[in-house]
């Protein structure tokens, strides 16, 4: 029922989803590309946790930092190697490229590690629960809320106060004109991919943390969630992405407690009904945003 526990868990789930959808929209805002390889950055983060945590003696916090860095680096590399050469081509070419990148990354871990899932070690406190005011909440749920607050604050400052942030907002608005100001196209696009990968990396810690295991297809669900959250919230602004993430988390948890037990396994189907309703009646999402649809040429 709707009590403190529900509220905290909903904010926690919403935080995770907000970070996910924000990462997707950062790239979409500038390139107008729905990056279907985005889920794979979460996967890369997960495998970095597994590899570093299992085969090195690195302390857990360093392992997490390196996992985030790995996701950010792979995101940047995909931009450099795969997306940059096709950037001036059609949007379809970019979309197909993003699928190719996704399949490629999945197969890299399939071949080099395993097709089966691998257990990832997490520090004991990660799965501990906290009890206060009658609510029992896993510590990692509190942790993700805190991290989300910090990340959103930092990103807001970067976007509002730094020249790079201004350039990225301008590029999402009018890409060619931004270049006419002397802002290099590669700079803003690379920055968008690095931020996108960083967010995916942070999410990977908590995503993998729920089951403490990672497999090559683990990126599918986060990609879908990010995509749905942006449809709900709005693809054309960062604010919309964050709103979409939280609304998705809320809807999901509401469905979980309101659906009768016999229907609970159809929760995803109900979720998609909501998405279809959004597409029918408010295709631009909750938050309209001001970005135009200009393509990068």
């Amino acid at each position, binding site marked *: 029922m709707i009590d403190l526990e529900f509220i905290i868990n909903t904010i926690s789930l919403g935080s995770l989803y907000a970070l996910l959808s924000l990462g997707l929209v950062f790239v979409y805002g500038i390139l107008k590309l729905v990056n279907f390889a985005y889920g794979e950055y979460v996967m890369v983060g997960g495998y970095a946790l597994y590899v570093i945590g299992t085969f090195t003696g690195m302390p857990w916090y360093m392992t997490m930092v390196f996992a985030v860095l790995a996701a950010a680096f792979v995101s940047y590399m995909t931009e450099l190697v795969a997306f940059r050469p096709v950037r001036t081509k059609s949007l379809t070419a970019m979309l197909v490229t993003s699928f190719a990148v996704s399949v490629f990354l999945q197969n890299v871990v399939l071949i080099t590690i395993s097709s089966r899932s691998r257990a990832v070690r997490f520090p004991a406190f990660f799965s501990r629960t906290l009890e206060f005011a009658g609510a029992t909440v896993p510590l990692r749920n509190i942790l993700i809320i805190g991290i989300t607050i910090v990340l959103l604050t930092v990103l807001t400052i970067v976007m509002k106060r730094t020249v790079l942030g201004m350039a990225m907002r301008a590029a999402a*608005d009018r890409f060619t004109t931004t*270049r006419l*100001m002397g802002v290099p196209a590669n700079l803003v696009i690379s920055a968008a991919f690095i931020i996108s990968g960083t967010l995916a990396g942070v999410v990977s810690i908590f995503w993998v943390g729920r089951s403490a295991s990672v497999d090559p297809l683990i990126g599918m669900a986060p990609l879908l969630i990010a995509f749905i959250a942006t449809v709900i919230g709005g693809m054309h602004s960062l604010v919309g992405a964050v709103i979409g993430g939280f609304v998705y988390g809320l809807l999901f948890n509401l469905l979980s407690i309101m659906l009768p037990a016999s229907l609970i396994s159809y929760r995803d189907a109900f979720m998609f009904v909501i998405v279809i309703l959004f597409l029918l009646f408010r295709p631009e999402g909750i938050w309209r945003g001001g970005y135009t649809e200009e393509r990068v040429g």
Partner: protein
Amino acid sequence: MLTIKDLTASYGAITALNGVCLEVAEGELVALLGSNGAGKSTTLKSICGVLRPVQGSVTFLGEEIANKAPEAVLKKGISMVPEGREIFGSLTVEENLRLGAFTSYQRDRYKADLEEMFSLFPILGERFTQPGGLLSGGEQQMLAIARALMSHPKLLMLDEPSLGLSPTMTDSIFELITTLRERGTTILLVEQNAERALEIVDRAYLLTTGSIEFSGTPEELRQRVDIASAYLGGGNGTCEVRL
């Protein structure tokens, strides 16, 4: 300063420019005139790197700049005020100007530049913290020009600065162009409003369907070419539109 030779550009199968030759000397104010679709904007886009020309050369200060990226052309010292103003609507006036100074930012000079822009365009000082999208058309045009000036361009290119503006606003924009020119800025101006442009420029080029049909001083142009017919593509010369 700027020399264009045999510039040919196309949009897919449609040839927009066909062997355009053009020159702008330092300190000059040159107009590029012509009717809709004559290739005026295409010429500017080819110079500033937005459009890759099919062939021909664009030399700026002795350096070939055709096929360079827009950000590289800006660094060479060519700043563009694009058609339709292209203000960053979700960014404040301040942020628009700050991006204009993206490549040339130095703290002290930036502050002095802002002061200078406020004296040229007092309205920008008043609207400093407002989003650019909330400005009126004329104010946006001023912001677009100020934004372009922030990079201290050696050559300023203006694409249809008076388009869609009220007569009073048009007056102040033309006044401003004259002021800028007196201060030594080299300007290449694309205008629909040929008569107004001819009042202030040193030389003008007339483009018709992708080629330069005429070039010379405003007097020569007025004597030799029926401007109305050049703009309308007909020979009756009776239309009062734009004249």
